[in-house]
């Protein structure tokens, strides 16, 4: 009797999860398999493929100096975007949870930070143009106050602009999970630490930071995977000065070089997965999420 109920429950679980699986299989697993498969076939040079097995696409990816330059550039952007979004995100979350005394106000300020997340990324990116441009607000202000004699060129269409746009878009991915982790910290723990004579710096280092590990890991996964998979921020904000891994294989698609693009895409997917797995190893994300 008992086992029958358990079986029925198990089946119910599967019926409930089935729709999710039915979306993820054709639109996540199959496309990935398709890309991996396409990376081993030959291109006929006209957008078609010759069904044969070859490693040539990978050979050309790995022997091209361009590949390494692209990955180096993308890694650099990833590290900068990750570092700044983590620094800003952590302290914003810390401020909201531990410094704002009215919980309703904290929630309101938290929502204030999240609202832009629900608006268009592309629009938020181009909205830096009137500020950072050669005749933009920042340059006019700096020239107007005689801080500099000539408008700065490096503000827009540069690596700096790319990093600014990333941090602008991605800090929210740090704030939300870190805020969530911090809000769960039992305030009595902190009181106890304070009573025991811990300084506020010690409290952050020894209590808050370790208990926010999951939030930081989750935020890092988002930031790393989004920057590694991005091409439009780099393309628009660098003004063509920098390229990205994804941007490069998007160009390949444009000239119908599917197999080369597929090899490149497979490599990127493997690297992103490895990074995500490495981050996941530091925390049991599922236990934390479903707790």
């Amino acid at each position, binding site marked *: 009797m008992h086992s029958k109920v358990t079986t029925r429950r198990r089946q119910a679980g599967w019926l409930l999860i089935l729709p999710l699986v039915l979306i993820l299989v054709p639109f996540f697993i199959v496309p990935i398999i398709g890309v991996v498969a396409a990376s081993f076939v030959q291109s006929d040079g006209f957008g078609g493929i010759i069904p044969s097995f070859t490693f040539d696409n990978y050979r050309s990816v790995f022997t091209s100096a361009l590949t390494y330059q692209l990955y180096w550039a993308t890694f650099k952007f990833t590290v900068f975007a990750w570092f700044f979004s983590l620094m*800003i995100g952590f302290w914003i979350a810390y401020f909201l949870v531990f410094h704002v005394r009215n919980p309703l106000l904290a929630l309101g300020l938290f929502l204030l930070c999240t609202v832009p997340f*629900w608006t268009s990324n592309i629009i938020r990116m181009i909205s830096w143009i009137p500020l950072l441009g050669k005749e933009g607000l920042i340059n006019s202000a700096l020239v107007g106050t005689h801080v500099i004699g000539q408008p700065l060129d490096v503000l827009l269409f540069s690596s700096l602009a790319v990093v600014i746009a990333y941090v602008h878009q991605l800090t929210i991915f740090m704030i939300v999970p870190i805020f969530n982790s911090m809000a769960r910290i039992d305030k009595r723990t902190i009181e106890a630490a304070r009573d025991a004579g811990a300084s506020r710096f010690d409290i952050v280092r020894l209590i808050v930071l370790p208990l926010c590990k999951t939030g930081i890991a989750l935020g890092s996964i988002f930031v790393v995977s989004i920057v590694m998979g991005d091409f439009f921020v780099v393309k628009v904000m660098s003004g063509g000065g920098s390229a990205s891994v994804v941007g490069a294989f998007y160009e390949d698609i444009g000239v119908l070089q599917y197999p080369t693009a597929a090899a490149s895409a497979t490599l990127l997917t493997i690297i992103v997965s490895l990074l995500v797995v490495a981050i996941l190893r530091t925390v049991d994300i599922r236990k934390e999420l*479903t707790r």
Partner: protein
Amino acid sequence: MTDQPLENSVARTVRVRRGRALAPSTGGRPWTFYVLAALFILYVVALYGPMVCIYILSFQDVRGGLVFPMRGTSLHWFVDLFTQVRTGDVKGAFSRSIRLAVAVTVITVVISFMSGLAFRKRFAGDSVVFYLMIGSLVAPGLVLGIGVGLICNVLGVETSWYTTALGAQLSWTLPFGVLVMFAVMSRFDNAWDEAARDLGASAWQTTRLVIVPVLAPGLVAVALFGFTLSYDEFTRTLLTAGSLNTLPLEIWSMTLNVTSPSLYALGTVTTLISFLIIGICLGTIARIQKRRAGGPAAH
């Protein structure tokens, strides 16, 4: 006192305790408060400032350029946006994006809700499904787009915004929806629906009368994610939408071709729609919460 809903008194206790813990006995603010408050204000200014700039600049007249100073005020660029050929089919893109977002929202809410219920208990392969979902969330969007395009090529299926792009967007909105459901479910007491079942409610009645009303604010939040993530989705849609553009694709081609304030006008219009949706959703959540807080007291 017995009329007091338990939730309220718990909330008050928590508030009192938090109030005490957060305000040290000295009462004064530590110096870090002022530093972090300044950081927070700077962050919010940097977050909204640029957006506000383009809203203002979109109201220039015909002489308007891409940077300040403001040249006149008019609705010229909004009219331009919807009437000029060179800005492309903005009206069509709008209507497609909204219809697509509505479809994605409905599907995301239903499937995330079901998945949220499923993940309450362990089932065979639950970890596989979980990591599949995380994989779908972190996979580079363009790689999935290439994959969908290749598969359609092999199968001889045409890509279009209401089939392949719909699926591609769901592979992005569903993991978000389910993650939001996890957060919501963590506050759901399994005893509530067990109690309903013990009192003789059918599975359908339990869902309709107990689970859905309790989870309603969370479901609205899932809907908010579903709509806005679909409405602004770009990388996964780029190679899967077929010949007709959605709005973000239209904006993308405009950033590469159009160098007039009509680009900003489009930004203003699309952000207004986002704000409208956000307002409706947050308003609905607030109303539900308020009714809950006030409900039992009115008896």
